[in-house]
């Protein structure tokens, strides 16, 4: 494809960027690793020195850790399922010609531009509030007992809030994929006797797999780090019911335990990598052309 010389040139030209990115990644990682083996608590500045594996031991054996780990997975998987399925359905809908298509498409994208803290607060106070929220009013109007969403179903509620914010992203990418599908393929399948269901499963869905993969990978990266929505709605509670790993690490930090938080960070990095490897094994081949 390229000559040896142009390849060598390409290597030299990309070197500065690679070095900057490497430093960008390696320096904080090295510092985190260093702190995670140190005794470093701002409340006890006199206790210093190496901590061995203690920081890891205490973080992993904290009962909150198991809950946070599980909640993180529920949050990621729950939001992924809702956004991918909902995104496909919305994309199919928006791909149909109808009056006001342009405006509706802009409206669909809108939630993505709302800051996570703002959208979570709006959901918490205007919709999910068991006394003043719209849902409570709606329930009362039809004679039902209002549900205390964040009190009784904190994790599902947060999954809902986050899914609402990410649905536009999934819809947008999947809609683009749908629009790039060759009309003649659809017509060919029509002549071949495929009904709507067969057309969806044999033609449309396979065409979208690559985009679905992109949606899953990108969202997973961001969903593993969900923090703001939890902070403004439940603070991880009640108890640890809506605590995820980033939130647990943040809590450890607010207890001034820098060493413990660093250990938590390293554990989170390892878990995120396991998830990444798992994902790439499962769906990464879809990205190969």
């Amino acid at each position: 494809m390229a000559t040896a010389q142009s390849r060598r040139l390409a290597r030299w030209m990309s070197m500065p960027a690679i070095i900057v990115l490497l430093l960008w990644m390696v320096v904080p990682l090295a510092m985190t690793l260093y702190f995670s083996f140190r005794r470093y608590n701002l409340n006890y500045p006199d206790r210093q020195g190496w901590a061995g594996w203690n920081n890891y031991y205490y973080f992993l054996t904290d009962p909150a850790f198991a809950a946070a780990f599980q909640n993180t997975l529920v949050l990621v998987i729950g939001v992924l399922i809702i956004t991918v399925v909902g995104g496909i359905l919305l994309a199919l809908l928006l791909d149909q010609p109808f009056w006001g298509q342009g405006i509706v498409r802009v409206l669909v994208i809108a939630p993505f531009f709302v800051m996570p803290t703002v959208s979570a607060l709006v959901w918490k106070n205007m919709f999910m509030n068991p006394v003043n929220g719209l849902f409570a009013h709606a329930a009362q109007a039809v004679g039902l007992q209002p549900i205390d969403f964040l009190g009784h179903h904190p994790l599902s509620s947060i999954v809902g809030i986050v899914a609402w914010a990410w649905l536009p992203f999934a819809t947008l990418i999947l809609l683009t994929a749908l629009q790039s599908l060759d009309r003649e393929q659809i017509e060919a399948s029509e002549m071949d006797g495929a009904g709507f269901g067969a057309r969806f499963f044999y033609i449309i869905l396979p065409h979208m797999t690559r985009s679905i993969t992109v949606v899953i990978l990108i969202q997973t990266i961001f969903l593993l780090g969900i923090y703001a929505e939890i902070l403004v709605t439940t603070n991880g509670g009640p108890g640890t019911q809506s605590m995820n790993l980033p939130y647990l690490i943040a809590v450890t930090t607010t207890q001034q335990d820098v060493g413990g938080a660093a250990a938590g960070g390293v554990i989170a990095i390892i878990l995120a990598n396991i998830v990444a490897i798992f994902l790439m094994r499962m769906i990464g081949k879809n990205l190969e052309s």
Partner: protein
Amino acid sequence: MGQITLQQVTKAFGDVEVIPPLDLTVDDGEFVVFVGPSGCGKSTLLRLIAGLEDITSGKILIDGKDASHTPPAKRGLAMVFQSYALYPHMSVRKNIAFPLKMAGLSKAEQDAKVDAAAKVLNLGSYIDRKPGQLSGGQRQRVAIGRAIVREPSAFLFDEPLSNLDAALRVNMRLEISELHNQLGTTMIYVTHDQVEAMTMADKIVVLQAGRIEQVGTPLDLYRRPDNIFVAGFIGSPKMNFITGEAAAREGAHTIGIRPEHLTPSPDGGMMQGRVSVAEHLGSDTFMYVETDQHGTLTVRAGGEVAFRHGDRIGLTPMVEHLHRFDESGQAIR
């Protein structure tokens, strides 16, 4: 069976009438070619027959039964698209088996039919590859394979060869003609290339702006064109047209003479002129002659003719091959 009849069929997109009322009969087993310039409505007409577009008014009969509002899959027709429209994520085998699978055939029946089609079309060596790994000609064969396994009552082709290079086009042209002889199924073939039309068709339908200009066998259209449009469209190089006094002498508004019906001579002749370009193809010689009386005329002569650029020559038309047209462009017979 595969007889298709169009009765007063029209098609409009919004306010634009693309097909004015049109009648046509395609007989069972016939190879019919729709030919016409780009944008004249050939594809639209084919898609109306396939059921991919709704007709605005009129009737489509397939084997005598009204199919005007029958969904595409139920019309028993198979279509080969210009872009081939293969399913990119399925192997060649799965592509061909897809219509059979949709029809609910068992795996064994599917395999048997796919293997039979693969044999007819020589797909054996790449039956397990994906369409993306095939050349244009191979994709074309797969698309045809997907059409024949359904055993349709008629095949519809929409400019199937336009994406292939010249040599391959000649090959595929032969293969499709052979396939027609082998299967004996009705075929409707759309092209803008009059050479394809002349070489393949039992019957040619010449279209212009959605209207049928003439229907007939290739030689019919060549020998007895109904109007100037058909006369100019069929035949290569194009027919020469002469208007004015010379035409009036023949009692016509325009007279037409094909390049092969002008005989060049070193001197004398009915017209005189200077050769501006002479193309020596070996088998033929095409000359563009600036005549003193009638502008530039194209002449087709044998390969042994040795005139070159700048020579003055005489031309004599073969009067028995003269075509006469009136003011509206209709042939005078």
